[in-house]
């Protein structure tokens, strides 16, 4: 199928909605899919682990 033909065909039709283009972009979804859990779960969790204070001294 000639690419030109397809191009012409698509120009005549209405544009694809932006959201649909976003959902079709698997690599962009991949980026968010990796970034969100890594930041929200892992990195945030590690930050909390290193910030834990030492056990203070108690007199029972």
């Amino acid at each position, binding site marked *: 199928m000639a690419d030109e033909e397809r191009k012409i065909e698509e120009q005549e039709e209405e544009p*694809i909605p932006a959201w649909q283009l976003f959902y079709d972009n698997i690599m962009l979804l991949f980026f968010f899919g990796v970034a969100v859990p890594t930041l929200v779960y892992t990195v945030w969790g590690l930050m909390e682990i290193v910030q834990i*204070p030492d*056990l203070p001294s108690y007199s029972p």
Partner: protein
Amino acid sequence: MAIKEPERIWWKPYTWDEKFWVAVALLWMLTTFTFMPVYHFIGKQNPPFETYRVRNPEQFTALVDAMVEKYKVGEEEGIPVVHPEPGSDVFLQASMWQWYPILQLEKGKTYRIHVYSLDIVHGMSILPINMNFMVLPDYDYVLTLTPTTSGEYHIVCNEYCGLGHHMMVGKLYVK
């Protein structure tokens, strides 16, 4: 079809039943989510979050030993029973396969119960009321509790800790 490429533009409005279900489901989900932070302000039954790093196990063992020495009131099966001052800091130590010591608490008094593991990961399950917490080595977890019911309670380990795991049972009295 889920098995064929959809038509060129599939971004289309919802039907009535789809919209209704999306609205109802979203509303219920936001409710159950909002419950969690809001309950920290209006409710009392929240997981404790106070925690300290224990650099040296002996530091915690020393605290346990000092408490046992000062407040020991008896002994069961070789494990001391301790009646600490009401409202004080209390230390409970888990190890393979023992909860040490046995605590005797007073009803209606608030305690800061420090739990800590000497060796590997354990799980603290207070039965029969079924309150469960993790006990980790190197971390002191401070549970601020006010026993509201008196009686004899057991502490069962509910995280696998080796072959004697099922024998790791401790005791807790509320008087």
